């Protein structure tokens, strides 16, 4: 184990050195496609721009910060061993007890490789114990600890640790746990700092965004990030400096950008990441090869891709979770006649979509610690016969199992077939991050459940979120990427599904398409069955809240059976047309108010005249 650790450390160091030497030689126009331990360092085709002191545009030389005093380091040790050691480990090697079930893994501090910085590619981040303002742009590490790294397990520590405590722990980490480099060593370290505070942003005009759209093609961004920026490019097997699998960012979910600093729609964060690169990953710095103006155009374009509401405004972000705010109701709008199977059709565009948050199924074995589908977007329409759900979600890979799956579609206990949860402690070589792309590939899938006979279940009772229970059964629809759409009855989390043959003919798959990292699946099901007896299926009544739970499987994540993503309880409601009373009663009330006014005025007038009523 120790040997392997050493080995990976050394290799990681070499990669760092490589990056460093590249910087020192001021190599400008050499495209390097070096593969060291699977890491691809791309210094994109540079246009020969020369600048004062040979610095990339927008950067300036900075001074190394002074070393923090010893008592600060000692105080920081106390913070570290209370809060950080659990993931980052005793020696800061990113191998604490929590590490092996995390993906992305916790940072290994030893090499001094930090992702989010204002400094040039390969350089150490800014850390100055005297700079106490987290958002000054002069203290990268304080920013990271303060705001956390969204999309990873690193939480924002603001409000938990005081600013002083955060600086103390960083003093400890930068001096004691960063072992291969020294923040104060003038011989080997330099600071080339992006002058983000003084660079004037280019406004996100249509022209700038259009230019950015062309530039991400020219600069080969789409090779990794995908044609639509959903992180589905051909570089799926990317590795970081330590050989762990990592994935390119999905530009449509800016709230998961590690460098979003709890301010996801702020274009400056994208500009910074694009200018400085992400150390330790294949994401290079484009500062050498791209003018500041072009960088703003790209940042504007990437920012424009992030999901927005119907009016094009940023989604409101829940400050408690740093994810879009959740509305637990999925409304279904009435439509006359046929419902279109084209998501671009006007009737679908008019119907607002709902963000449905998905978490890993962590209740029963096999638990899904690494959940790769963290949200889906749902829309619904209904007519006199059917209700249709249009579900869209980002999935970097289209996964279809090769050959026939060894279990029957109704089987839910698939642990015996190799669908297992991650062991708690496996060592780095067996960790999720190491094994990430070596899972057997199963089918992608989406499913949802309603209670059967919800009309007879007294509120707030519901069949359990995980496929119902013995008392209250669930009506489950499940689509898989092999093209099947099946209808089941669920009687418990560990009970195999029961098939419902007659109903399967009536549910229809209107569309199932994977394109540029996004699944679009449209499922139609009848509002009710043939008979009025609804023992088997859910009967939809207009204007009623019907509980609904969503499930999603990512085949390339080895998701099958209970290893999946799951939502909380949502409600679907068939929106009724507005009834007449709604117009009548308010009019009556208004007339009542007029009468009341008349009575009051008369009374006052009479009182003034001295009359008593």
């Amino acid at each position: 184990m120790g040997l392997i650790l050493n080995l990976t450390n050394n290799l990681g160091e070499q990669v760092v050195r490589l990056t460093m030497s590249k910087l020192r030689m001021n190599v400008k126009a050499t495209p390097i496609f070096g593969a060291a331990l699977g890491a691809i360092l791309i210094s994109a085709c540079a246009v020969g721009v020369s600048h004062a002191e040979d610095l990339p545009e927008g950067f300036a030389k900075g001074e190394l910060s002074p070393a923090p005093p010893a008592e600060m380091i000692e105080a920081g040790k106390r913070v570290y061993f209370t809060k950080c050691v659990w993931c980052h480990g005793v020696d800061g090697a990113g191998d604490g007890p929590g590490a092996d079930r995390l993906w992305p893994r916790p940072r290994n501090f030893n090499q001094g490789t930090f992702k989010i910085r204002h400094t040039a590619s390969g350089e150490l981040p800014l850390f100055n114990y005297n700079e106490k303002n987290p958002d000054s742009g002069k203290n990268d590490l304080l920013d990271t600890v303060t705001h956390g790294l969204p999309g990873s397990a690193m939480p924002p520590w603001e409000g938990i640790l005081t600013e002083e405590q955060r600086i103390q722990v960083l003093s400890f980490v930068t001096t004691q746990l960063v072992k291969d480099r020294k923040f104060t060593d003038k011989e080997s370290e330099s600071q080339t700092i992006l002058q983000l505070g003084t660079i004037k942003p280019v406004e996100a005009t249509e022209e700038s965004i259009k230019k950015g759209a062309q530039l991400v093609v020219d600069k080969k961004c789409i090779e990794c990030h995908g044609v639509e920026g959903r992180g589905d490019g051909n570089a799926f097997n990317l590795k970081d400096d330590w050989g762990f699998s990592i994935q390119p960012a999905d530009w449509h979910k800016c709230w998961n950008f590690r460098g979003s600093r709890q301010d996801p729609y702020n274009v400056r964060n994208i500009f910074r990441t694009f200018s400085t690169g992400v150390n330790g990953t294949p994401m290079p710095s484009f500062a050498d090869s791209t003018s500041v103006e072009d960088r703003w155009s790209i940042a504007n374009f990437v920012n424009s891709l992030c999901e927005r509401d119907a009016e094009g405004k940023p989604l409101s972000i829940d400050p408690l979770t740093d994810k879009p705010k959740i509305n637990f109701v999925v409304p279904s709008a009435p439509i006359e006649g046929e419902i279109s199977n084209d998501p671009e059709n006007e009737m679908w565009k008019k119907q607002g979509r709902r963000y449905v948050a998905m978490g890993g199924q962590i209740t029963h074995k096999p638990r899904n610690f690494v959940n790769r589908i963290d949200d889906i977007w749902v829309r619904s329409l209904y007519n006199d016969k059917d209700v249709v759900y249009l579900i869209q979600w980002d999935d970097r890979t289209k996964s279809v199992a090769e050959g026939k799956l060894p279990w029957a579609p109704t089987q839910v206990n698939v642990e015996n077939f190799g669908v297992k949860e991650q062991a708690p402690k496996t060592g780095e070589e067996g960790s999720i991050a190491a094994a990430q792309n070596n899972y057997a590939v199963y089918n992608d899938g989406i499913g949802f459940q309603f209670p059967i006979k919800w009309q007879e279940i007294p509120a707030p009772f519901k069949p359990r979120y995980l496929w119902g229970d013995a008392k209250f059964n669930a009506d489950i629809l499940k689509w898989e990427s092999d093209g099947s759409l099946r209808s089941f009855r669920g009687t418990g989390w560990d009970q195999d599904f029961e098939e419902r043959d007659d109903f399967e003919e009536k549910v229809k798959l209107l569309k199932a398409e994977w394109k540029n990292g996004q699944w679009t699946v449209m499922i139609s099901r009848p509002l009710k069955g043939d008979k009025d007896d609804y023992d088997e299926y859910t009967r939809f009544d207009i204007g009623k809240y019907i509980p609904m739970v969503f499930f999603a499987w990512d085949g390339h994540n080895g998701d099958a059976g209970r290893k999946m993503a799951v939502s909380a309880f949502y409600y679907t409601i068939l929106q009724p047309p507005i009834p007449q009373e709604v117009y009548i009663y308010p009019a009556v009330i208004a007339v009542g108010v007029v009468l009341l006014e008349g009575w009051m005025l008369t009374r006052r007038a009479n009182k003034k005249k001295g009359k008593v009523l």
Partner: protein
Amino acid sequence: MKALMSVVALIGVLGLLMLIGMIFGVIPSNTVRLVEGYMPMQVLSELAIFVAGFAGLSYLANSMGIAFPRFWQGVLFWVFIQTYLKFRIYPPIPFSVRAMYGTVSFVAVFMWVSANEEDWKKFRQPILNVLDANTGFHKALRTMYLILLPLLIGGFSFMTMKPSVDEPIELRTVHPAPPASTKVHGKTYTLQTSQNPYRVNLEGKYDQDYSNKLIVEQGMGRLMAPNANPWDEKAEGYLKYVREGGEIFFQNCHFCHGDNLNGRGLHAFAFNPIPANFTDPGTIAQLQETFIFWRVAKGGIGLPNEGFPWASVMPPWEQHLTTDEIWKVILFEYWHTGYYPRTWD
């Protein structure tokens, strides 16, 4: 005095402009962020600043001879309280609670404007003026009210009657009554008499006073007590068990309950009910260790109906952990939050 009051008034005006700006999205709503640990104090001091600002404004207006009618002072202050509660506080307060605050602040405003006969007269004078309509201005005002009031009330009732797709409100009992005993891995534990076998002193005896001395300190950060580092190689007994419990916590529990045990884990955003926040004085701090043992072992599915067993994703940990591991995790949770478990008496 005047200078002081002008400064105070200026702060009040700036605060108001900022609040309005944030509500209408002109200023980013996180300009002055409410931070979790400081929130109650932040809210109180903000309100204090506003009240001082209003007092300053009213003083200035008085001294400049453009006194603001007492009636409108009362009405606007009440509206301000409502606006503040609705738009500033996060997570949002439910309407029912806001209505309660609304009533209380209404009574308070009423008491303020009717504190003495003179004040009360001042307060109702504008109402009577409009009712009597002795001047042309008041006549116009009265006509306006006569038309506007029915329209507003009618419109309001139309909006409330229109079928809406708001989230239905369901109230869930967070700490339901525990059973007398619980059976885990074939052994029955009586909640009243069971003890955490790892809360022991160096002699191996159950000793809560001993463990209480070694838990993290209260106050910002909740840092470990000096010389009580569970990661110390020489740590024995209680502290060693705390570390083992922490290892289990960070391999199993932090995904929902979070790295700081505050219920903000990686998957927490997707779930409803949200995972428990152990740093909140309303959770483990007011519960017995055996209650936690029962909750952890049986999970969401083992809740009585008032706890919504169908919605909770809390695993029944007896499926994943041994009894010893469960006790150690509980030990760690109390250590890390710096709370003493409650005892049965």
